[in-house]
């Protein structure tokens, strides 16, 4: 296992979360300790082991492609912080 080189500021940007300098410093220490702890997994020989993504061995669950009743427009929009003309409003993406 490669040694933890966690850069909280960089990862917070990937995760789209602003963090204060105090939080960055705190997480750096706390998560550094957590990563040190999980470093123990490098002791396990996994060279001939398949990964488990899921506890149940199921793949590709299919269903008929049929239209069914879903949320009404009003219900679907009811929780949107900003909406207009029956649409969700998004912060401007293009200049």
């Amino acid at each position: 296992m490669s040694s933890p080189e966690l850069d909280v500021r960089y990862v917070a940007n990937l995760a789209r979360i602003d963090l204060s300098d105090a939080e960055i410093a705190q997480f750096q220490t706390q998560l550094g300790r957590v990563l040190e702890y999980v470093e123990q997994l490098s002791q396990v020989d996994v060279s001939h082991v398949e990964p488990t993504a899921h506890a149940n061995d199921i793949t590709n669950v299919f269903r008929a492609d049929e239209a069914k009743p879903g949320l009404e427009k009003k219900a679907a929009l009811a929780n949107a912080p900003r909406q207009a003309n029956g649409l969700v409003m998004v912060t401007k993406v293009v200049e």
Partner: protein
Amino acid sequence: MEITDLSVADLQARLRARELSPVDAVNALEERIEAIDPQVQAYLSRDLAAAREEAAKADVTLPLGGVPIGIKDVINVTGQPCTAASKILESYRSPYDATVIARLRAAGAVPFGRLNLDEFAMGSSTENSAYQATRNPWDLTRIPGGSSGGSAAAVAAREAFATLGSDTGGSIRQPAALCGCVGLKPTYGRVSRYGLIAFASSLDQIGPFTRTTRDSGLLLNAISGRDPRDSTSLDQPVEDYTALLGRDLKGVRLGIPKEYFVDGMDAQVRASVEAAIKQCESLGAELVEVSLPHTEFAVGVYYIIATAEASANLARFDGVRYGHRADAPKDLLDHYKRTREEGFGSEVKRRIILGTYVLSSGYYDAFYLRAQKVRTLIRQDFTNAFAQCDALVCPTSPDLAFKLGERTDDPLRMYLADIFTIAANLAGICGLSVPCGFGEADGTKLPIGLQFLGKPFDEARLLQIAHAYEQSTDWHKAQPTL
């Protein structure tokens, strides 16, 4: 006996006999909640008018007809709040019913009340709630466990007959143990997750908190089964989970995982659990020592896989379709980053950062892929152990309920509180905690839980074993004084 002291089975019998009405049951709970919840703080909100209205229409001839059931505030109920104990969902109202809620209603039950939790079910003490810290009904200076702390405390404090919680790494079983009630985590795929706010999708499972194992079976009967809206729910037949109750333990082989009885466990927990295992033996169970050799790696695997899945699941909180949105963002990036900064609490941010890191380019193989491989070994440990026994028996939590604030500055120590419960989620098997005694700390009595772990889809057997033990003791009858 107060109405609120009744088990679900006894309450339903009285409702069916028309000795009580469902509205009486709701009113009795409301009175109890008003009297003691200012101390316990299990409920985040409740809609009394809606519950009374539904109770008045309830068909008491149905299996859970007229029984009010409290819901962890992470499961959607139409028209009700579903905050996940997060500021980011403070003003959210559910536009639909989770499948478990639709199924409870079909069984005649009345969803009543929203129960506190660690924000997005991330925690082991319910202190990570953005709204309030729920107290342990046995000692109000201590935590109820978590993340389903509100669901556990409400059942123990007689302010709910039964509740639903969710268990990703022990979030049902650990608070059940610390509050002295029965908590069941079904096999992964037994209960639909549709309408449960996702934390770690390959680990999450909804399950009941009750005061008895029979009640646990009754609730499981109602909520189980394949759901086309959750592709990971399996098409296994739904049994009557109360059918085997009353059978004794003769011929039952109970495995004792030696790795679960190591140093560092509270001495009182160890003594109670060992006495309970002897009790099972005296009831006819055959004890076999088994080994789960990868136990020591379970916490590490869990905090990689669970945070990785959480970082992806919580990406949906973007301030666009629902939830909090930052004011006057200068561009889309600022919109996302400030929305999430303002909306999420500290532990949620910490886990998103960790999860994003272990999935990020250059670290994926070293952390995430390796953890998935060790997860395979942990699953195989259980398969091997179950070849030698019908179920495993061990402690639920290594500790008694700790003091509020005691571990909030030390995430790693908090994570280690889940050491005996996490592996069951990684392996996808079923598990249950049942009261097995009391320890003492600073002169107060604190509950201890015994954990039984069962083969996939063997809940009927698991409940049979736990019921046989429970009925040979009085632990489940003990009540906190409030």
